[in-house]
Each structure stands twice: as structure tokens, then as C-alpha cells.
């Protein structure tokens, strides 16, 4: 990849599903470029393809046709094992419902992605401590998800997403289950990660307030981007 190339490039992307024997097309020739260090919010009505696009960007679903490149990796050409390895090293994901493992405490949940890296136990602990400190959860390492508020759990989710220091952060409705105050805290944190640490962030959201934190807002409808706004 040269410096002039976008970090994420989607060309002629096609994706469809079969439901009850009927073929339904989600994307039919989608194109999209996202430069490195961007913070993009993707909005759109239910069924517009937001989650499908996010799944393909995360490498957990494959396009039927077209090209999907992130950095130097062509996800559309990679098998499942290669995509899993790519996710472990290049991407962090933040879910709407946090998706923390209930039997692990905060530190253990955050440490999970590091188990896939050749790090010593001490290095892993140091990194976990650092990111928990970054998301404002110092001192809560041993708390289990059931003992935390939604906002705190989401911060653990963010810490888990960034602990491997990935270049790309995908957020699937990260504030969808939070009150306004907690949502703003989480969004401030995402903005910090984008502006201060240079993470490329793609956030799917229904919330126009959340979208305001992004640098760009893309509106998706029936598998096509119909509007793009630059943040103020």
C-alpha cells in the first residue's frame, strides 16, 4: 500500500442472503474509501446493511463478490483462519451489549486478545493495567461484569478492543445500551482514541448525537451510501 491509497478500500462489493429460498441482495456494487485515522459514523434505517458491512469489515462475514482491502490485507481473498489471525492483530471491536465473558473479571476480559500474542504474563498484565487506566477503570480490575454499570462495562469493552493496539476500531452501536451521560463518556473516549492515538474508527449508530463525534457521517440506505456529511 502506498501513502496515497486509502486505508480501507471497498470496490464493487456484493453481498446477499437467502431467506426461505428467496435471494435478497444487501449490497450490489458498493464502493467506499476510508483514509487512515478517519472516524466514520455509519447511519441508516434497519435493514440498510450497516451491520452486514461492519461484519465484512471485521472479517466475520465474507462478501459474495468485489474487493475489500484493509491496509495490505484483502479480506475477500482470505480463508476463515487467516481472517481470525488478521482480526487478532489488526482490529478491535466494541459491541452494543459489551459482550464481556461473565466468568472473567475486568482485567481477564481485557487480557483475552493478548493471549493470542507472544507476550509474557508480565507484559500482558502491564498492558491491561495501562488500558484500564486509560479508560478510567483503575482499581476495578477484579470486578466482574455483573458488578459493573453499563457504562463501565462498555469501557471494559473498549479497553479489550484497544489492548492489542490495533489500527482499526469497529464499533457496533457502542452507546445503544447506555444513558446519555455514559454514552457521552464513551464517545469522548472514542474521539480521544481517534485524535490522540490515531486509531481509525468506524462506528455504526442510530443515534445522531453519537454521530456528531465522528469526522464523517455516512448514510446507508438499501445497500448504498446516499449522503455524506462532514462533521462541524
Amino acid at each position, binding site marked *: 500500500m502506498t501513502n496515497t491509497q486509502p486505508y480501507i478500500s471497498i470496490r464493487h462489493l456484493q453481498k446477499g442472503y437467502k431467506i426461505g429460498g428467496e435471494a435478497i441482495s444487501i449490497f450490489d456494487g458498493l464502493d467506499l474509501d476510508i483514509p487512515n485515522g478517519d472516524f466514520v459514523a455509519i447511519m441508516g434505517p434497519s435493514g440498510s446493511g450497516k451491520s452486514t458491512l461492519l461484519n465484512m469489515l471485521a472479517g466475520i462475514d465474507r462478501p459474495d463478490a468485489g474487493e475489500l482491502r484493509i491496509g495490505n490485507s484483502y479480506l475477500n481473498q482470505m480463508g476463515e*483462519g487467516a481472517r*481470525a489471525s488478521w482480526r487478532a492483530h489488526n482490529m478491535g471491536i466494541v459491541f452494543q*451489549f459489551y459482550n464481556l465473558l461473565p*466468568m472473567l473479571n475486568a482485567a481477564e476480559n481485557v487480557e483475552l486478545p493478548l493471549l493470542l500474542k507472544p507476550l509474557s504474563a508480565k507484559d*500482558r498484565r502491564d498492558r491491561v493495567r495501562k488500558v484500564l487506566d486509560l479508560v478510567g477503570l483503575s482499581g476495578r480490575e477484579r470486578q466482574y461484569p455483573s458488578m459493573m454499570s453499563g457504562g463501565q462495562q462498555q469501557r471494559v469493552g473498549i479497553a479489550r478492543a484497544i489492548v492489542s493496539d490495533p489500527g482499526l476500531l469497529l464499533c457496533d452501536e457502542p452507546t445503544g445500551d447506555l444513558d446519555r451521560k455514559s454514552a457521552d463518556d464513551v464517545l469522548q473516549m472514542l474521539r480521544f482514541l481517534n485524535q490522540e492515538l490515531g486509531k481509525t474508527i468506524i462506528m455504526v449508530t442510530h443515534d445522531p448525537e453519537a454521530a456528531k463525534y465522528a469526522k464523517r457521517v455516512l448514510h446507508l440506505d438499501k445497500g448504498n451510501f446516499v449522503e455524506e456529511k462532514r462533521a462541524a
Partner: protein
Amino acid sequence: MTFSKLARKNMWRKPLRTVLLIICVAVAFLIYGLTASFVAGSQGSSAASEDVLGVTSVAGQSQPLPIAYLGRITSQPDVETVGYMTRLRGFVETENNVVSVSATDPARLMAVTGPQLGLTPVLIEALGGARDRLLVGRALANANGWIVGQRITVTSFQIAKQDGIRNWRFEIAGIFEGESTSTDTYFAIAHYDYVNASRALAQDTVSAFILRPRAGVSPSELAVQIDALFANSATPTRTQSEKQFLEAFMRQYADVGMIVNLVTGAAFVTLLMIIINTMIFAVRERRFEIGVLKTLGVSRRRIMMLVLAETLLVFIVGGGVGLALTKLATVLAGPAIGLTLTPMIIAKASAIIFILGIATGALPAFNAMRTPIVSAFRTR
């Protein structure tokens, strides 16, 4: 945190279910341990030698052989030492207190299996003091509370004296300990001359000859030689190793080995079905989390290993508890019951633990491995 810790945490997330599974496995391995220990102990096969050969009538161990065979067996160049014995089975005081007395030539017995039985020159000398003296095995002595110098009367089931009475009086001259705790010492040793001279029938016969081949001689080849010697005689012989001999003796009553295999086989098949069923449900409950782990980059292979590790842990803990309980049972039961937990049983149990752990985890692990992330996320 490590993946093995993650497997442990997964295992204990529903403690009641895990404890019940562990109990289930422990009971299965307790059954296996007890039955296998019973076979090993009661047949004495754990301590029985492959090198000591027993010669009995081909018609069965209850059919006597002429003692005249002794000379022909002794003359075989491949035979190092030969002993003989007549089995006198009976009871002491009450009919359910069954004892077995081997009437033998003590010096010959000493030469053939003295070290294995723990016979010493002092014991043999003590036995030689009078014809009605008896050496008692430690297990038999302990079970009856017998001490040296005590007089006992064995009422034989079959061998009567010339006056028709089946009571045989003996004086305990010593107690032999056996080479190890697994040696069968639940019997006594008497003088052949005393029993032979006094019995009404079958004089000058023996129940069996026991012999030890010369060094370097194949016991199985010698067995063929011995049987060939008497192939055309009135009483042909069957020569077997001590181990085969004891197993054949037990088979007169029942094929204990087959019973053990059937009982443990049924227990393990049931166990397998219960645990596979439980693990499939446990993994199905966790499909969403498996999707999360895969999203974080955990490979399919590692997901499979996580589930396999979980079932293996259940089997290792349950199997370990079952074997520990078996050991406890063998200690508490004492030698009279004849339970012997041998290293071979532990090795076999360990192999079964490993195989069943993998077998029961295979299907749920395969399901977990194949679950697509997208469909895993739909399960919430």
C-alpha cells in the same frame, strides 16, 4: 490468564452441573477400579509370575496327578526346580470361614517360590519340627487373629482321613509375609507327607506340580515339552504359567474378566452419553460467547481445544477421585477381600480417562469449532 485457566473458568461456571458430572465420572471409575482390583487381587495375577509353571491334569484342576510324575519332570534338562502340592480346602470353626491349605514338600516349595511367598530358612525349619505344623500367610493370620503356636482345626470339604473324619489339626509354626502387599497370602502351607499318609483316598497323588525353568529357557516352550511327556499317559497334563493357572482357577467359577468388562463397559457407555449430552447443551448455551471469542481472533482450532480441555478436566478430576476412592477401598477392605490396585490398572484407567475425555468432548468441540460467528451472534 491463560487458555487453560479460561477452560477451568468455563468448567466451573455452573458448579452444580460440573460437580454432578464429576461425581458421575468418579462413580464410573470407582466401579472400574474396584472390579479390576478384584480381578487382579483375587486371582493373584498381580503378583503371579509368568516364569513359574504349574502342571495340572488336563481334565481339570480338581483331578489329581500321580506323584510319580515328579521324577520324569525333574529329569527334564530345562527344569531347574520342581515342587508339588495337594490342595486341602475347608473351613475353620464356621463354614463361611473358608481356608485353603497347600500340602507340600516345604524344601521344594522354598526352592520354587520361596522368595515370592516370603519363606525364609527359619520358617522352613520351624515347619520341619513336626508333621502337623503349618505356616500361615499374613493375610489369613490377620483375618483370623491367629498367632504362632496356636492350634487350629481345618474341616476339609472333600479330603477325609482314613477314619472317615474330615478334621485336620495343625499347629501354627510361623507366618509368611509375601514378597509384596500384592502377593496372595490368604492360604497356609502344610506337610504333604502328613496329609498324604492320613487321607483315605487318592494317596500318592498331587493337585499340581509347580516348577521353575532354567535361566534362558522359554516357559511356554517348556510347558509344551512337559505336556508332551504325558500326552499318552492315563492322566495327560496341562502346563501353564502361574498367572494362567490362577486365572483358569478363577474361571472355574465365572469369567470374572468378562464380567468386569461388561459392567465397566455398560458404565462407560452410559457415562459417555450423559456427558456428551450435557456438554452439547453447555456449548450450545455458550454459542454467543464462542462467537465473541472468534471475533477477538481466537482460531477454530483453539476453540475446539478449549471445549476438549473442559471435558478432559472433568474426566481428570472425576477419574482421579474415582481412583483415589478405589485406593481407599483397597486399604480399608484389607487383603482378605483380595482387592489390589496395580500400576497396570492405574495406567489403563488413565488411558481410559484420556480417551473418554477426548471422545465426549469431540462432538461439542466440533460443533463449537464450526459455529459461524454471524449465526452465533443471532443466538442472543
